[in-house]
């Protein structure tokens, strides 16, 4: 029973995916165009931010996280949180060595 409902929820039309794809291509163009401009330290942040937005679109739409059960989103949140924690600890360490 559950399953039937769940499959219906996961059904999308073709058009939403084409819209998401258009957004992804636009963001790719943006990140390539912006790379020519030197924002100094902000350059990395801009590039990563655009990559994060693109990943968010792929995760929620293409990978169906939007319509998946809540526990999936909790799992992914925890996984990403630990990556963020590791990265923070890593750089709190390294920034003290390098100049």
């Amino acid at each position: 029973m559950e399953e039937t409902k769940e499959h219906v929820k996961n059904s999308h039309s073709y058009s939403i995916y084409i819209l998401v794809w258009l957004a992804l291509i636009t963001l790719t163009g943006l990140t390539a165009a912006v790379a020519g401009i030197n924002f100094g330290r902000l350059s990395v942040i801009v590039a990563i931010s655009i990559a994060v937005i693109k990943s968010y679109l792929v995760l929620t739409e293409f990978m169906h996280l939007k319509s998946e059960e809540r526990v999936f989103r909790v799992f992914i949140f925890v996984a990403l949180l630990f990556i963020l924690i590791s990265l923070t600890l890593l750089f709190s360490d390294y920034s003290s060595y390098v100049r």
Partner: protein
Amino acid sequence: MSTQEQAAVHEHRDDIRSRMGMWLFLFSELLLFGGLFFMYSVYRYTHQQDFSIASKEMNTFLGTLNTVILLTSSLTMALSIVAMQKGKRGLSIFFQVVTILFGLSFMVNKVIEWTHEFNEGNFPGSEILSSRPPGQILYFGLYYSMVGLHGLHVLVGMTVIGYMTVYTIRNKITPDNYVKLEAAGLYWHLVDIIWIFLFPLFYLIT
């Protein structure tokens, strides 16, 4: 009772948990690439100048083209699942094959890029590369290992989708039971996400 419900009762299958299993595997992939991204970020932080100089040698056009190719392949993968949900098996097979072909063209571009680098002498262990500053050696080492590992994932993804196409033709994947196709799709999209980060980090350093 629909045929799908009957199938569910009869086969004792659990699509949600199947996809959860796939996600757990994807988390292990996240650890694998996460470690490499950490290493990249530390070396880029300690060798900013060299990373910037070395990345200027990358072919930004081919990099951007490959990004577009991979994003489009993710679209066709997603569309193959929609087609299956709508009961259009033929269309689903068409989209699966197109996805594989996009993967193939991605790999062809990679071969062009690597051949060029190898001809320039920029390959791990070469005398030309070894004589360059340490930061640039690190950049190329990371480039070959991370992009190379990603390329292997593209090859594996193409193989997996190829199997799914065979399953679809043999009616093992049907509009009532297509969780295998969904799992293959999840893998393919993850490979896409990894490239979304690799592209600006290796090709677009200002």
